[in-house]
């Protein structure tokens, strides 16, 4: 009896194991967002960049914490203030069998900034850089001014073969021109249905464990979770926060989480004496209170970040005290998340001359960040508690961002108080400093997303110094100092939390969470 039971169990496990063994080589991933093209230079967007990373390589690559690691360049260094030299890897072959050398790099930098109809071009990373071939395996890049972020910028550009220099976006989408040097080869793309790749057996780096990968776009969150539960996909990304607790309890699944480079913050109007959505409680005009740093500090103090994280975010966020989480390049060691202290906040308001608060309407998107509208509602309640009578208006992102950036008749930001987020593409502190806290200037290309128009000469100077300092330690110090002044002293924006991203997979699989929120088949490992 006992033996028979064993035999049955063995037979069952063999039967169950057979399809497993065949399927084990294939990985199916349910994606929340689909790339808009396979062309690696068409659209600078997270899903596109993630797809490109499978098919192509960069000279310099970013690891899961966005630290720079050698890619097709084995090493790089500044040879003088204005020139960087990249030594290229030898013996690398494209998927079509041709050799990789400096000509391919030149072809790539010629094509990447000039793709027709690109909705968000890579030209921003290549502008002002001159590429020169020294020999087949050495490239020199020169700039007019010292440029420390060279390797960061270069790490965004995917290298194509010189044969594909004149290829169109359609040629890449159909696979005709899609021969890269990445860990996976292109097999087929049916937009909206599937993207199939197979392992590049001749990959120059660490060979991935999955022979075939199928990406299935499943935009609806509940449907994505259901597909995982039903076993139709092996892993999903962008797990809806409401489902995380349940999935964690499920013994057949494994949940992977990691903090992202995205900070969710509040930006307040600091450039108008008379801010459009702020009035006294009786509706009469008052001077914009946010011009006073004490008021900005009071708002930060009045927000209970822990409560928002535990109740609204279901625990999947980390309280934020600056622009990037600990461990990133250029963060300040001095800034910790503000402790909740409503009493002190009220005291600050009284000191600033607003003991009774005022009336205000706050704005935010409702389909851009995790639980964005709910966070803003919670913030509004907390502000009401210290006497600021706050009402909330949220809207779809396509309407919100236009109004938030240039909604006023004179093309200035329309709102007085907004909730937004920022993900640092370069994975270091200059990206948010430059975009959010540098003085808004079209000519200099600074502060493009500085919607509160925070402006401080010392911060600007520190950012300028950092952006011209090639020495890593000195630059990190300058960035940290700029953050200290802009946030610690002046509270230019009010950080709330860093988003934590969640992936869920079948038991036995684990995803190495990436801070840049990308989903890589290379990051799915067996436990």
């Amino acid at each position, binding site marked *: 009896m006992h033996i028979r039971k064993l035999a049955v169990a063995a037979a069952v496990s063999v039967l169950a194991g057979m399809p497993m063994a065949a399927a084990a080589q294939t990985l199916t991933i349910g994606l929340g967002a689909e790339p808009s*093209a396979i062309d690696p230079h068409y659209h600078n967007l997270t899903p596109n960049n993630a797809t490109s990373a499978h098919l192509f390589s960069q000279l310099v690559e970013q690891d899961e914490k966005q630290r720079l690691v050698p890619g097709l360049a084995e090493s790089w260094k500044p040879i003088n203030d204005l020139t960087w030299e990249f030594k290229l890897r030898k013996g690398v072959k494209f998927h079509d069998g041709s050799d990789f050398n400096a000509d391919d790099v030149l072809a790539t930098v010629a094509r990447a900034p000039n793709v027709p109809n690109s909705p968000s071009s890579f030209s921003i990373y290549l502008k002002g850089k001159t590429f020169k071939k020294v020999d087949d395996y050495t490239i020199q890049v020169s700039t007019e001014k010292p440029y420390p972020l060279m390797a960061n910028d270069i790490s965004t550009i995917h290298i194509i073969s010189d044969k594909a220099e004149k290829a169109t976006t359609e040629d890449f989408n159909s696979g005709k021109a899609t021969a890269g040097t990445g860990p996976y080869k292109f097999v087929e793309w049916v937009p909206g249905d599937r993207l199939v790749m197979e392992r590049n057996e001749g990959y120059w780096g660490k060979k991935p464990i999955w022979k075939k990968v199928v990406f299935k776009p499943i935009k609806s969150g509940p449907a994505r979770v259901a597909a995982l539960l*039903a076993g139709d996909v092996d892993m999903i990304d962008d797990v809806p926060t409401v489902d995380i607790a349940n999935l964690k309890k499920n013994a057949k699944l494994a949940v992977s989480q990691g903090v992202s480079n995205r900070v969710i913050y509040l930006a307040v109007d600091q450039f108008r004496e008379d801010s459009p959505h702020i009035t006294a409680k009786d509706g009469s005009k008052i001077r914009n209170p946010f011009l006073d740093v004490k008021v900005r500090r009071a708002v930060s103090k009045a927000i209970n970040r822990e409560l928002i994280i535990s109740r609204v975010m279901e625990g999947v966020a980390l309280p934020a005290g600056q622009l990037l989480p600990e461990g990133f390049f250029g963060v300040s060691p001095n800034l910790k998340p503000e402790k909740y202290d409503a009493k002190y906040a009220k005291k600050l308001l009284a000191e600033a001359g607003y003991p009774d608060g005022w009336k205000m309407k706050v704005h935010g998107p409702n389909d851009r960040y995790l639980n964005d509208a709910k966070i803003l509602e919670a913030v509004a309640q907390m502000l009401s508690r210290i006497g600021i009578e706050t009402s909330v208006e949220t809207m779809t992102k396509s309407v919100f961002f236009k109004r938030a950036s240039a909604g006023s008749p004179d093309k200035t930001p329309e709102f007085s108080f907004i909730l937004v987020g920022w993900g640092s593409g370069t994975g270091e502190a200059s990206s948010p400093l430059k975009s959010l806290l540098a003085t808004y200037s079209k000519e200099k290309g600074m502060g493009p997303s500085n919607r509160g128009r925070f402006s401080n000469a010392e911060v600007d100077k520190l950012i300028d110094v950092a952006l011209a300092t090639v020495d890593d330690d000195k630059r990190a110090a300058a960035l940290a100092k700029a953050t200290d002044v802009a946030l610690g002293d002046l509270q230019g924006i009010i950080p709330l939390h860093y988003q934590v991203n969640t992936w869920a997979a079948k038991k036995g699989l684990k995803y190495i969470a990436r801070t840049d929120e990308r989903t890589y088949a290379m990051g799915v490992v067996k436990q």
Partner: protein
Amino acid sequence: MSAFIIRRLLQSVVVVAVMSLLVFVGVNVVGDPVHMLVSPEAPQEEIERIIRDFGLDRPLYEQYWLFVKNALQGDLGRSFVFGEPALKLIVQRMPATFELALVALMMAIVFGIPLGVYAGIFPNRVSSKAIMAGSIFGFSLPTFWVGLMMIMVFAVMLGWLPSTGRGDTVAILGLRVSFLTLDGLSHIFMPALNLALLKISLVIRLSRAGAREAMHQDYVKFARAKGLSEARVVLVHIMKNILIPVVTVLGLEFGSLIAFSVVTETVFAWPGMGKLLIEALHNLDRPLIVAYLMIIVLVFVIINLLVDILYSVLDPRVRIQDAGR
């Protein structure tokens, strides 16, 4: 007959022209696609380049004029997001949606008519009442919820059917269709049923009402008096008369099956036009939204025309009336 068709065609042209104006203006005054598309790190200068490239710096009437001029040459614009012609993108996804809508329509006919006629002929049976009560659910439950419930039950709990996506396809006359493969059928069953649910209920109600009415008509009584078998009375005499309203409604509903498969396609990740539209709306991909709506307008106009013609074939009174005018 031909005068009838020509008149209807002229009406259709006016409808399409008016709709193009409404759709274009409606879509183009909302929000700003550039801020959706561009990387947040892009400097102001890059944003201005995109605005110029997309022609958004021109006045609205000029944009509309350009759109009409190109549309008359068969070019409905280029998708902001995908960079490919909008028409091409939609046509690529069309077979999947048409297939889904056709299967749903078949389900509506196959389940709806027999159940409805049965409930109409035997109105007092408990089973008939159950059918009618069931049809109320079909009407009132939201598609989104029913779809998710179906996935939970049949895919997650029972594991009978796949939860998402489209199955293997085979090419027929250059079109890739999935309903001819076993894998394809297993994938299409749930979304098609989900989409068909409302239509099944509608057809049940229509055919029941039709059957109830026809039962008491003189020609049915006469057919019975002639001693015709019950089967012949139901299948020929009653059926023929209830088909007219059913055909009219189903024809129009086919249009709405195509146009509003959006929810079902999203829940089941079906790679059709509806899913494309939802994503286009999400990203404010204006050319794609406008092109989609224009195609849907055309589909409705054509279906209406066909229904009118079919109607006049089925019901001689329409023809006579028209000739008399």
